[in-house]
């Protein structure tokens, strides 16, 4: 399918986004088609997280085009929210809710049927002892699993995964890969930022490299910048 078609899940042209006065995105062109899995690589500080936050409508673009799932981000971002799922560096969870309640709340908030909750918990191995443990008491990886369960149960049309493997153990990682493939199979678009080059490369249909707030075609050496900015 032609990624430039109007029905592209993500369509950015010369998109600029500022953090304070700093241009985290310095003119990004990007198209992601439904059903496509796109991998973002790049050094620390390249702008991956910022790009994903733009796509989730969390970070406004100050210039350029930005259309996500048919919503022009310059105009309204709200309609978008229920259709995207962002797995960020931070898990947006309430420490004082149990695992099950957390996922249920998130699903309700998105106006989805709660029937998807139980299967999602089961898939991520959260249906045992952990189902009724409060999120604040979970280990890092267990918490990440809950975050994954939330995205899964909300069944978004656009998956935005910011280092989805971080903190997960070996087979949770495989699990995430399977989930991503399934989602893509169901026609969801997946934009994925990761430093796990081998694993992510195997997963992605297309690989892009970010550097200096821009998206480039992959160049071998661009993968290995020495500086952190």
């Amino acid at each position, binding site marked *: 399918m032609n990624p430039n078609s109007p029905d592209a899940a993500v369509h950015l042209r010369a998109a600029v986004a500022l953090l304070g006065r700093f241009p985290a995105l310095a003119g990004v062109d990007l198209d992601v088609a439904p059903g496509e899995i796109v991998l973002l690589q790049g050094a620390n500080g390249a702008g991956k997280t910022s790009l994903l*936050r733009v796509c*989730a*409508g*969390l970070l*406004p673009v100050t210039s350029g085009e930005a259309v996500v799932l048919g919503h022009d981000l310059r105009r*309204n*971002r*709200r309609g978008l*929210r*229920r259709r*995207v799922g*962002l797995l*960020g560096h*931070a*898990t*947006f*969870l*309430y*420490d*004082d*809710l149990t695992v099950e*309640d957390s996922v249920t*709340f*998130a699903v*309700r*908030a*998105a*106006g989805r049927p709660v029937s998807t909750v139980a299967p999602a918990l089961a898939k991520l191995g959260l249906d045992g002892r952990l189902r009724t443990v*409060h999120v604040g008491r979970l280990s890092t990886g267990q918490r990440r699993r809950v975050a994954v369960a939330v995205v899964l149960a909300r069944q978004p049309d656009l998956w935005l995964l910011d280092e989805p493997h971080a903190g997960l153990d070996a087979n949770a990682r495989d699990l995430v890969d399977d989930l991503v493939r399934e989602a893509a199979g169901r026609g969801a678009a997946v934009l994925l930022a990761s430093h796990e080059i081998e694993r992510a490369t195997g997963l992605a249909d297309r690989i892009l490299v970010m550097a200096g707030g821009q998206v480039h075609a992959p160049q071998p050496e661009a993968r290995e910048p020495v500086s952190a900015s």
Partner: protein
Amino acid sequence: MLRDAALVAGKDLRIEARSRVASNQVAPFAVLVLLLFAFALDPDRGVLARTAPGLFWVAVLFSGLLAVQRSFSLESADNARDGLRLSGLDPAGIFLGKAGAIVVQMLALEVILAGFVTLMYGRHLHGPAILIITCVAATAGMAASGTLYGVLAAGLRVRETLLPLLLLPVVAPVLLAATRASESALDGAGSEAWPWVRLLGVFAVIYVTFGILAFGPLLEEA
């Protein structure tokens, strides 16, 4: 909108039911504030009795502040705004939900406080009807403005200090009106109370409507 409001309020109250912050911490704090004033003002009962309503409302004010602080500190720490925005909830719903939860907690708290005031400062309650209306209107106003400024400061690292500064002056008029209203009510001068009660009602309506309208832009929708 109302569905979302119910959802959010339910969530906040459930968290409170578990963490018991309002009952174990905010409520005792409110009583403490009352006691503190007994220190600050000469324990000469004349002053205290005369100023009982004012002190009651100051205590409500400060504990309300805590309630708001808490209501936003439980939104997942630094990413509160992102979390709320990602949730896909209708901003107006979030506003009403969080404000509603605060109102519930504060009304409960006011009952307790009222008890203490009557006890400590030996004030007897006249005109309960007016008093109740006063409490409801004032609380609604405080909760609404509190939630508004709460989300304003949410996600800022300086929330804890900024929120009081922003909030106190806005609710000060509420404090004044509520004090005067309750005083007149206690003096059995209902007629004098009503104008103040009306003022409180106006505040509440303004803040609530404004909140419903402004919450979206604040969460950067639109």
